[in-house]
């Protein structure tokens, strides 16, 4: 009897899986053809992609970039792609892109809105990454690089180009050395942007900022004596007196004495296109933040009257369409302001849009407040902090952090909604500028091109902002449970 036996000492190499279970085929089986319904969906999807691409590709491929009128475009397309071929006439955009971007802003002065746009990111960086050296520096430097490229693209003269480059480099260096100091840029940004956009004497915006400075000084010196709310009241009153009665004389005198610090003035009726969208969007959102915080606090207040007023305002504004607010700005405001007061439509629109946005921001912040556990407020109370100290040191920093994605999406919504200002006669990029351009007989027949151009730019801005807000949401997700 042979008792030889066989023990395998080596493992068999694993066999290759069946062809259907590897690589592309497996992936396709699992992801595209897992059952009949999925297969159907796959083919439907493929058909939709094919239909879209085959339908629009010739039109895009036949596009003409240089021509002086739509008729010339058509002639070129007919010559190159054959009679009856359709094609885009991008020449319209090529000739008039500056109006889509800047409206009727002086072409020599394009560096001003662009510089303000670049500074916007510098001003935002300490808000988003307070006292974090690397991200602040990267954001500032990135904004600088993009700014210089944009300035070069619109053909800015060398002097302003280098001025902007040096300024942005200095700010990037500041962000690296003392990221906290960048907060001063944020505080100065409203006045800077105003000066860059509207021009005129530099002393007017400085005077306005001084008003805020005076208010802060008064508040600081009084707060320990008479308490928070009375001090705030007195401070506000002082600032109002400064703006109403003193500032005009001081800045007028300074403007006469030192006239060289000024830029050519641009009237706001020369704003248009995406410049207008950004001016309305950014100023409305930044103005609505403080109002929104106050409204959100008011809505949670124990005081019946304050709560009622806040809820009433928020629900009223959220209950009416934005268009009615815009028409209020253009038609109704004149009935409710003192007779013979008159200031320009863009400003009125900004004010009304800010009020509109503040109701939405208030709800976003209320969401942030609601996400905080009650224990936070109780802990603050037990430490003996008063209401405003608790809000400033404990509640708001946490609530605002939770609310940032909501604020960003409010901004995206508002930015898209700025296209509605065309309905009250302002030159928004979608309808206003398009109408102006199409009033020129050469471009009258252009139809789809402005839609696609403006839509693409809106998409780029809104998509990147929404992606950024999603990224922030992920990053800020330190659990509150």
């Amino acid at each position, binding site marked *: 009897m042979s008792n030889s036996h066989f023990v395998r000492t080596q493992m068999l190499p694993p066999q290759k899986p069946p062809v259907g279970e590897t690589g592309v085929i497996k992936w396709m089986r699992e992801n595209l053809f*897992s059952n009949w319904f999925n297969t159907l969906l796959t083919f439907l999807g493929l058909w939709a992609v094919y239909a879209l691409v085959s339908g629009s590709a010739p039109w895009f491929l036949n596009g003409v970039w240089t021509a002086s009128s739509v008729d010339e475009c058509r002639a070129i397309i007919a010559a190159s792609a054959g009679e009856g071929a359709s094609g885009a006439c991008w020449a319209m955009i090529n000739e008039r892109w500056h109006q889509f971007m800047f409206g009727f802003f002086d072409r020599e002065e394009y560096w001003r809105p662009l510089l303000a746009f670049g500074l916007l990111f510098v001003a935002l960086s300490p808000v988003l990454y307070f006292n974090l050296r690397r991200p602040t520096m990267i954001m500032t430097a990135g904004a600088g690089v993009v700014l210089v490229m944009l300035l070069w693209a619109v053909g800015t003269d060398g002097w302003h180009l280098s001025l902007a480059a040096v300024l942005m480099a200095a700010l990037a260096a500041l962000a690296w050395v003392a990221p906290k100091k960048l907060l001063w840029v944020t505080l100065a940004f409203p006045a800077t942007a105003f000066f860059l956009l509207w021009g005129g004497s530099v002393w007017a915006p400085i005077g306005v900022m001084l008003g805020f400075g005076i208010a802060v000084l008064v508040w600081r010196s009084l707060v320990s004596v008479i308490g928070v709310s009375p001090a705030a009241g007195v401070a506000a009153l002082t600032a109002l007196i400064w703006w109403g009665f003193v500032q005009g004389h001081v800045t007028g005198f300074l403007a006469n004495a030192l006239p060289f610090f000024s830029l050519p003035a641009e009237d706001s009726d020369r704003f248009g296109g995406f410049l207008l969208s950004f001016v309305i969007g950014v100023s409305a959102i930044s103005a609505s933040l403080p109002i929104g915080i106050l409204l959100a606090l008011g809505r949670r207040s124990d005081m019946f009257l304050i709560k009622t007023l806040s809820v009433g305002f928020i629900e009223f504004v959220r*209950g009416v369409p*934005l*268009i*009615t607010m815009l028409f209020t700005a253009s038609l109704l405001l004149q*009935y*409710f302001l003192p007779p013979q007061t008159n200031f320009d439509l863009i400003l009125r629109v900004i004010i009304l849009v800010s009020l509109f946005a503040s109701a939405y921001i208030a709800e976003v912040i209320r969401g942030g407040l609601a996400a905080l556990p009650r224990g936070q407020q109780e802990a603050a109370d037990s430490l003996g902090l008063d209401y405003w100290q608790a809000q400033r040191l404990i509640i708001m920093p946490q609530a605002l952090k939770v609310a940032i994605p909501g604020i960003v999406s409010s901004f995206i919504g508002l930015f898209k909604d700025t296209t509605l200002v065309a309905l009250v006669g302002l030159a928004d990029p979608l*309808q206003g500028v398009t109408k102006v351009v199409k009033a020129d007989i050469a471009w009258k027949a252009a139809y789809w091109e402005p839609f696609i151009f403006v*839509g693409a730019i809106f998409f780029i801005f809104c998509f990147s902002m929404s992606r950024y807000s999603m990224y922030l949401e992920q990053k800020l997700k330190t659990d509150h449970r």
Partner: protein
Amino acid sequence: MAMVSDAPKGNFRLSMLVYDTRYRSFTIQVIVLGLFIAFVAWLLLNLQANLAAKDKDISYSFLFNRAGYDIDQQLIPYTNDSTHGRALFVGLFNTLAVSIAACFAATLIGVTAGVLRLSKNWIVGRLMTVYIEVFRNVPLLLWILLAFSIFAQVMPEPKDFKVTQEMVDQGLEPPAQKIFFDSIAITNRGTNVPAPLLDRPLGSVSVLDVPINLSVLAAIAVIWGSFWVNGRIRASAKAIQEDTGIRPVTWWKSLLVLIVPTTALLLALGFHLEVPAFAADENGVSKGFNFVGGISLAHSFTALFLALSIYHGTYIAEAVRGGILAISRGQTEAAYALGLRPNRTMNLIILPQALRVIVPPLISQYLNITKNSTLGMAISYLDLKGTLGGITLNQTGRELECMLLMMLIYLILSLTISLGMNIFNNSVKLKER
């Protein structure tokens, strides 16, 4: 505050209004009230002064004057001899029509896209992502204008549907054909759909100058009645099931109850569809400019409806996706462990729970749809903004009255919607003990 009980009593000093937390909130409220009243008074005084300066008054009597303009889509009878007040209601009903239709369509699109975005099918998931990102990151106004342009520029003209003598002679077909069994014609002027007509209608009664169609009322009553009976049948079936464990077969009863009475009513009233068509002579040659018969939906309506539902569909899709993702995976796994099939898991376990997360954003989307229907003014959809806030305002020059009335109506609409949806929200909310 906890210390209220041991605060000294009796000796009230004026400074306590500021320093004592018991009285401070009172002080603050009085100051705020004073400021608020002063502000309102300031506005009213300005209003009075401005009206005097412009030599105007506030009067709503224009609502009873002849409007003089035409509205291309109307749900209640209206001619240019009707009053501005009636035009207001035509506009209001147009607002409601497009908003309600768009709410339904957006929900449908949104739920489909939201579920499909989570699909394991790679192509479909990506396509839905592209759809959602593209549509929600571009202004709604652009989609409205684009939809309107596509209808006007791309669809065939009505005359392409016409049969000419030449075509009859040579046996040719006209260049454009109606779709859906030769019943719906999409032209660049509007969508012509079949109209439901009755040979023997019940007539109508007029309540407050608004005619109420008795036939429609009868149909609603019958349908509601059959649903009620069906509900009773199902309830008794359930009771039997709970008693005996065996569910009696009810589907044929339900079918019978749901279909027979309605069909009988429709037959009795002589229901038929009137298909839009060109008037034709004896040879089959078409005459006239436009389709005759059927209902013509203006493109301003269709475009606004499509743009609103597709744009807001993306937001609803995101809400649905968020709601589904918010349900923990354990729920799905538990359902599988119980042996439920995937689609029953979705229907019975996931969606009912996700609904609680989905409903609040859904409410705000419905509100947004209603408010954004005002953008129809860009394509001259004559909704409330188009009639009261547009042409009426323009013809009468009564901007103050028109705008205030319009804001009030929109406010009432919004508050009604949020009230209704909040009641629904409370009914699906987790009942906590």
